[in-house]
């Protein structure tokens, strides 16, 4: 391809970081042929991450070298690099802290932490960047920026600290204080904060995670690991799919699509290369259950993906892990390596004529990449922009090939279904929602954490199990799901946590967020934070979402100032129309649900409170 590349030469550090990922550059002076470039495109994001981990930012010389090696046009690489929040496009200190100021952390002192960091290191890097474009250099030894939810709501407030270098250090931790952040910025290990991990009925999804011994293959095997895969081999691909179908298992990522139907659809594409993708891009504010599973039970995801591959005829597996989960990344890559070494992944799994292997890919700060088609685009090396459906990924997925995409929790649930059978699986839960589900309790509860409950458990019982509101204050509302989100008023706390129960109450279970509020949480700022989140995370592709999320945030800002334009009713009418258009005309779920929580707040609660007059 006659690409015009950047002229800057890479430094030795930049070159070696990229060569370490891609292998040494081949001899000869010419770029890859079009077909080789097509095949290499998938390494674009990993290469950018490798570059930043080494030199701290996406340097010109490094970016140019990435483009030359991969045969990617520099403008497209720039488009990809500028898509991800974690990538730095200007030079900045090697040590950098991302501090969560999202809803759960805001309820637990995030603003104070941000204030302290500002005192110590200067203003948030992104705002400094904006004020003085292309002049981000700072004499300070470290810098920081605000971040959306880091998935550590159970340990709020949270921070993610990265230190670039030959041995880069990445740490995400809760219980963040100035001292702990400073320590991490100096490259020192920071101890983990405590969190709750409990089951209210039979311990299934958390069976191994709570044992905390499943992070090695031996420990996993001791806890019954790989018995489900052995059972799958007995059942055969069709038998596995039958069992999964019979279990009525539906996706736990929020959309609740029947898993069995997905697998059947992919299995139909006989003769084509097929893929299994684990969506581990958990990024919805208030959600952290997948992180816990990935950190504490990584082999379960690998085993389940192998079963999915066996059942659908897919031989390639991919885990797309959100960039903010360094511990999960470490545990997963160790687990993949030891599973491969033990013959649980590879060309002949357990000595059988079954091939399956897994590649771990990390995101770089883009909530939208949890949308399945955006996730595929991100793996392929493009901007994480959702694609129009149909065609669905089961037909046209990764690299245009049939693809199963399952959420982490769904995959872990599959193990019980396959090992014990669909009827055993349904021994708990409700007829419409068999089994158990993980919920992420955060906000004003005594013991925030991940709770496994049988479907049908009332919401109030769950909150009680988590210790209720500290100090026994009354609950002012519960935010159930941020994304397709809705608020539950204090009057509705008996809501049964099942798909049908949620539906009857006009909400969904989504991915399992339970954010509990008392009167210390002001509703309007919370709504503005949610609106800001959607504005920040919109990919920008379609008009309703790109501009609609901006207008929604502006509108809330006016309400917060008591400066409604044309009266409150006019503004509420505008909000409703905006919401309707975003819901109806956006490409993907992000835009379609960007107004849900906000609209719901106006119906269920009274966000304007005293400001109504």
């Amino acid at each position, binding site marked *: *391809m*006659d690409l*015009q590349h*950047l002229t800057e030469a890479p430094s030795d550090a930049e070159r070696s970081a990229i060569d370490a990922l891609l292998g040494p550059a081949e001899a000869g002076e010419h770029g890859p042929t079009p077909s080789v470039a097509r095949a290499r495109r998938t390494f674009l994001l990993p290469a950018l991450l490798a570059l930043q981990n080494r030199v701290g930012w996406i340097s*010109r010389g490094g*970016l140019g070298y990435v483009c030359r090696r991969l045969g990617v*046009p*520099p*403008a*497209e690489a*720039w*488009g990809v690099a*500028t*898509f*991800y929040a974690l990538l730095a*496009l200007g030079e900045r200190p090697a040590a950098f802290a991302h501090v969560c100021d999202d809803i759960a952390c805001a309820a637990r002192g995030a603003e104070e932490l941000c204030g302290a960091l500002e005192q110590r290191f200067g203003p*948030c*890097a*992104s705002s400094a*960047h*904006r004020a003085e*474009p*292309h002049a981000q250099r700072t004499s300070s030894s470290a810098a920081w*920026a605000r971040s*959306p939810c880091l998935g550590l709501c159970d340990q709020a407030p949270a921070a993610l600290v990265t230190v670039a270098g030959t041995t880069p250090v990445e740490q995400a931790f809760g219980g963040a204080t100035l001292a702990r952040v400073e320590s991490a910025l100096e490259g020192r290990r920071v101890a983990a904060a405590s969190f709750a991990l409990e089951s209210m009925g039979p311990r299934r999804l958390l069976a191994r995670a709570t044992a905390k011994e499943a992070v090695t293959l031996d420990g996993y095997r001791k806890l019954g690991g790989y018995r489900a895969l052995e059972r799958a081999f007995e059942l055969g691909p069709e038998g596995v799919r039958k069992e999964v179908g019979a279990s009525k298992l539906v996706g736990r990522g929020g959309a609740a699509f029947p898993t069995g139907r997905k697998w059947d659809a992919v299995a139909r594409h006989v003769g084509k290369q097929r893929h299994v993708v684990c969506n581990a891009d958990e990024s919805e504010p208030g959600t952290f259950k997948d992180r816990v599973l990935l950190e504490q039970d990584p082999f379960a995801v690998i085993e389940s993906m192998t079963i999915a591959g066996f059942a659908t005829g897919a031989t390639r597996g991919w885990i797309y892990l959100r960039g903010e989960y360094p511990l999960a990344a470490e545990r997963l890559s160790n687990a993949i390596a030891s599973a491969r070494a033990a013959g649980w992944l590879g060309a002949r799994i357990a000595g059988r004529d079954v091939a399956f292997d897994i590649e771990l890919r990390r995101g770089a700060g*883009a909530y939208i990449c949890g949308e399945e088609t955006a996730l595929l685009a991100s793996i392929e090396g493009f*901007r994480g922009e959702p694609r*129009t459906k*149909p065609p669905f990924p089961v037909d046209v997925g990764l690299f245009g090939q049939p693809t199963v995409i399952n959420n982490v929790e769904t995959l872990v649930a599959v193990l019980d279904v396959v090992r014990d059978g669909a009827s055993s699986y349904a021994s708990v839960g409700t007829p419409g929602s068999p089994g158990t589900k993980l919920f992420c309790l955060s906000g004003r509860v005594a013991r925030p954490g991940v709770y496994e409950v049988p479907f049908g458990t009332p919401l109030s019982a769950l909150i009680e199990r988590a210790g209720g509101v500290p100090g026994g204050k009354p609950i002012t509302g519960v935010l159930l799901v941020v994304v397709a989100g809705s608020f539950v008023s204090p009057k509705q706390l008996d809501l049964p946590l099942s798909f049908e129960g949620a539906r009857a109450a006009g909400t969904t279970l989504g991915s399992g967020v339970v954010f509990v509020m008392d009167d210390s949480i002001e509703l309007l700022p919370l709504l*503005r934070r949610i609106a800001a989140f959607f*504005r*920040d*995370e*919109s990919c*920008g*592709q*379609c*008009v*309703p979402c*790109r*501009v*609609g*999320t*901006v*207008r929604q*945030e*502006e*509108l809330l*800002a*006016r309400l917060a*100032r008591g*400066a409604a*334009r044309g009266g409150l009713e006019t503004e509420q009418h*505008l909000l409703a*129309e905006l919401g309707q*258009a975003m819901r*109806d*005309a*956006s*490409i993907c779920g992000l835009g379609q649900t960007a107004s849900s929580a906000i609209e719901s707040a106006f119906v269920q609660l009274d966000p304007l409170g005293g400001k109504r007059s």
Partner: protein
Amino acid sequence: MSDAQRTIELEIDGRKTQVPEGATLLQACQALSIDVPTFCWAANLTPVNVCRICVVELEGARTLVPACSRKAEAGMVVKTESERVKLSRKLVLELLGSSVDMSLAPEFRSLATKYDAHPERFGPRAPRAPSGERESAHAGHHHVDDGAHAANVAQPMKVDNDLFVRDYEKCMLCYKCVEACGTDAQNTFAIAIAGRGFDARIATELETPLPDSACVFCGNCVGVCPTGALMFKAESDLRDTGAWDESKQKVTDTICPYCGVGCQLSMRVQDNKIVRVTSPADHSVTAGHLCIKGRFGWSFVEGGKPK
């Protein structure tokens, strides 16, 4: 292509119709002379369905669907002017109108009237951003405003060469220029979408000026731009001085002399000066695309002296 192409029957606005398999709902509507507005769709580009003005209501679907890219399926029941459709179109027009200068998008005004769109509902426009500000936004971060003004993409025009200008406050991010520069035609990849969300923009690598970028100045981006954000310098200069006068213009089709490929040129001439050159999107040789010589290399017939 199979010789016996199958047809599909569906219903649009109460009328039964048959279309060939693979046809889009937009094509099905066009066959029935049902007007479906489009901005980001073009006959010679892959549909990206991002502007969402073409949404229609499909019975049984949770959301509206984009007519430009949704394939017709047997038994579909489609409404093109339902209340839901009208509301979405109205909002799309308002959101575009409040954030982008749509004054040169040919159909914008009549559509705004038709769908009762009032972009000013979102408040007065925020002032024009200084040069470079939009390019420096970082994904996932934005300045939180007080809601007094409607944020927009107003910014200074980029003039960095003598052939065409980039006036990105008219850019509605339809992706057409990126497609034409990329795999749909030119395969030069000089521009891409950069940034995210409301800060998404058309950019060269590191926001480099065009003459230093990979741009080969084929002007195929200009040829597909629906809002006048990309414009011949000649046209922009005439508009600046108020001399642009479409009543004095004539468009004549001829064939480019610069090689033997036979590209059809549509030459727009005002006062015996060539002010814009395009090619018909349905021309079998060009599919609407030209090279730098065919697009811009005409000063020699305008008394320009060879240097």
